[in-house]
C-alpha cells in the first residue's frame, strides 16, 4: 500500500538502527515513552525494541482508548442495553472489554441485549433513523481522532430531528493524560522511571496539531517527537529523541510532517468545541481520576446526551487487585512483572485493561513478545 510499504522497508530500518546505535552514548540512559497504542503495536509487531541498544528503552504509555475505558462506563452501557431496552451501538473494539460481574458487551448481547457493532458513528445514526420507535445509543470512545466524527453525527441528529438518537460520550484527551503521567506521585517521588522523552501521537496530532505539546516540552523539560505509525517512523523518532537528549534540548519536533502541522485540523477542532465541553474529571482505567481529561456533550445538545437523557449515575468499580496495568502504563513495571500475565490473563480472557486490545501494553507483549527470544528479529520477516 502506498505510503505504508515504503515506511516498512528493511534496508532503511537497518540504517536507522545503525544510526541509533552509533549516536546513543554508551553509559547514558534513554527512556522514552510512546504514548499511543498504535506505536506500542508497531514496536511489538516489528520488533523495534530488538533493534535498539540496551540503554535505549521504550515504555508503553496509556494511549489505547479501549484500554483506558473504566469498568463503570461499560457497566452504564450494558445497563442501557439490558434494563432500558435501547439499541446500543459500539465500535467492535469495545465488545470484549471486561465489565462488572464477569460481563462484557458481548456477554450482554448473548443475554439478549440489542447490541450492534458499527464501523462508524454515521452507522449508529442510520440505525436510529431506521428504528424510529426505539431509543438508539452510540457508545462513543476514543481520543481526539474519533471525537470529530462523533461531533458531526450529534450535530446532524439535532439538525435533522433524529429524536431517538443519543451518545454516551467517553472521549478523552491526550495532553491531559501525558501531564498526569509526568506528575503522578509514583513517577515524581519514587523517581523509578524517569522519562527522557516522548514519542507523540500520529493521528491524534493531525487533529490537534503539534502546538499543545509545546507546553510540556517547556514545563517538564522533556523532548517530544510526533511520529507516524509505521515502524520506520518510530525508529526515526527515536533517533531524533536520542539527538535531543545528547544535545540537552527539550523541543517539540515533528517526524510525521507528511500529515501533521502545528495548527492541526481547525475545521475538526471548531466542530468539537461546538458540541463538546471539558469534564471536570474523568476516570481512566489504569490511571485513576484525571482532571479535565475528557469531554462531555454541551447542554445545547442535551437531548442527544445519553447521560442526561437516561439520568445515568456513574459508579466507579475497582479493577482486579492483582492487575498491574496502572504501574505498567506509567512505565514502573513491565507486563511480565504481573503474575497474571499469560496465565489467568490472556487476550482471550483479559483480566485487566492493557490486555484488552492489541494496542494495549500487555496484549501487544503477549502477541508479539515471544518473537523476542528468536535470534532473527521479526523485522526481517515483517518488513520484507
Amino acid at each position: 500500500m502506498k505510503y505504508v510499504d515504503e515506511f516498512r522497508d528493511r534496508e532503511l530500518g537497518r540504517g536507522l538502527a545503525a544510526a541509533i546505535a552509533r549516536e546513543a552514548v554508551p553509559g547514558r540512559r534513554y527512556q522514552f515513552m510512546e504514548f499511543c497504542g498504535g506505536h506500542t503495536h508497531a514496536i511489538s509487531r516489528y520488533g523495534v525494541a530488538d533493534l535498539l541498544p540496551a540503554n535505549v528503552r521504550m515504555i508503553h504509555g496509556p494511549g489505547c482508548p479501549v484500554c483506558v475505558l473504566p469498568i463503570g462506563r461499560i457497566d452504564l452501557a450494558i445497563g442501557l442495553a439490558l434494563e432500558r431496552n435501547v439499541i446500543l451501538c459500539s465500535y467492535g473494539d469495545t465488545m470484549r472489554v471486561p465489565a462488572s460481574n464477569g460481563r462484557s458487551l458481548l456477554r450482554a448481547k448473548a443475554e439478549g441485549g440489542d447490541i450492534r457493532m458499527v464501523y462508524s458513528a454515521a452507522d449508529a445514526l442510520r440505525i436510529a433513523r431506521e428504528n424510529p420507535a426505539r431509543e438508539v445509543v452510540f457508545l462513543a470512545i476514543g481520543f481526539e481522532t474519533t471525537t470529530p466524527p462523533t461531533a458531526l453525527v450529534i450535530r446532524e441528529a439535532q439538525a435533522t430531528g433524529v429524536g431517538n438518537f443519543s451518545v454516551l460520550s467517553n472521549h478523552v484527551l491526550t495532553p491531559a493524560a501525558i501531564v498526569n503521567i509526568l506528575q503522578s506521585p509514583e513517577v515524581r517521588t519514587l523517581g523509578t522511571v524517569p522519562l527522557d522523552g516522548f514519542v507523540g501521537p500520529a493521528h491524534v496530532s493531525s487533529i490537534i496539531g503539534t502546538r499543545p505539546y509545546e507546553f510540556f516540552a517547556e514545563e517538564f523539560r522533556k523532548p517530544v517527537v510526533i511520529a507516524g505509525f509505521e515502524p520506520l517512523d518510530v525508529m526515526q523518532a527515536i533517533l531524533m529523541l536520542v539527538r535531543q537528549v545528547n544535545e540537552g534540548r527539550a523541543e517539540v519536533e515533528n517526524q510525521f510532517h507528511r500529515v501533521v502541522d502545528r495548527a492541526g485540523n481547525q475545521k475538526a477542532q471548531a466542530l468539537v468545541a461546538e458540541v463538546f465541553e471539558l469534564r471536570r474529571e474523568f476516570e481512566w482505567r489504569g490511571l485513576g481520576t484525571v482532571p479535565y481529561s475528557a469531554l462531555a456533550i454541551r447542554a445545547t445538545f442535551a437531548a442527544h446526551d445519553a447521560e442526561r437523557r437516561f439520568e445515568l449515575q456513574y459508579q466507579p468499580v475497582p479493577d482486579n487487585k492483582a492487575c498491574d496495568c496502572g504501574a505498567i502504563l506509567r512505565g514502573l513495571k513491565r507486563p511480565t512483572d504481573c503474575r497474571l500475565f499469560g496465565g489467568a490473563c490472556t487476550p482471550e480472557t483479559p483480566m485487566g485493561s492493557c490486555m484488552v486490545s492489541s494496542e494495549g501494553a500487555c496484549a501487544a507483549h503477549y502477541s508479539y513478545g515471544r518473537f523476542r527470544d528468536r535470534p532473527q528479529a521479526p523485522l526481517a520477516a515483517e518488513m520484507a
Partner: protein
Amino acid sequence: MCLAVPARIVSLEADDQAVIDAGGIRKRVSIALVEGVVPGDYVIVHVGYALARLDPDAAAETLAAMAAAGLEPGELV
C-alpha cells in the same frame, strides 16, 4: 482502534462523501472533516472519515532523511 490508513481519493460524491482507494480496496467515506480535497489527493482515513491530507512531498523528504541517517558518517555525498 487507532487504525487509520492512507488512501487516495478516487471521486467526490454528494453530501460530503468520497470514494477512496486504500491498497486496492474501494470504500465510501466522509470528507466532511477536511477542506478542499480533490481526486488524486491522499488522505488519512479513520472510522469512515478522512481526518487529514497526506503531503507527498513531505513523505519523500522523510524517506530521504531516513536514507541519509543510515549512511555512515563520511559516506554522505
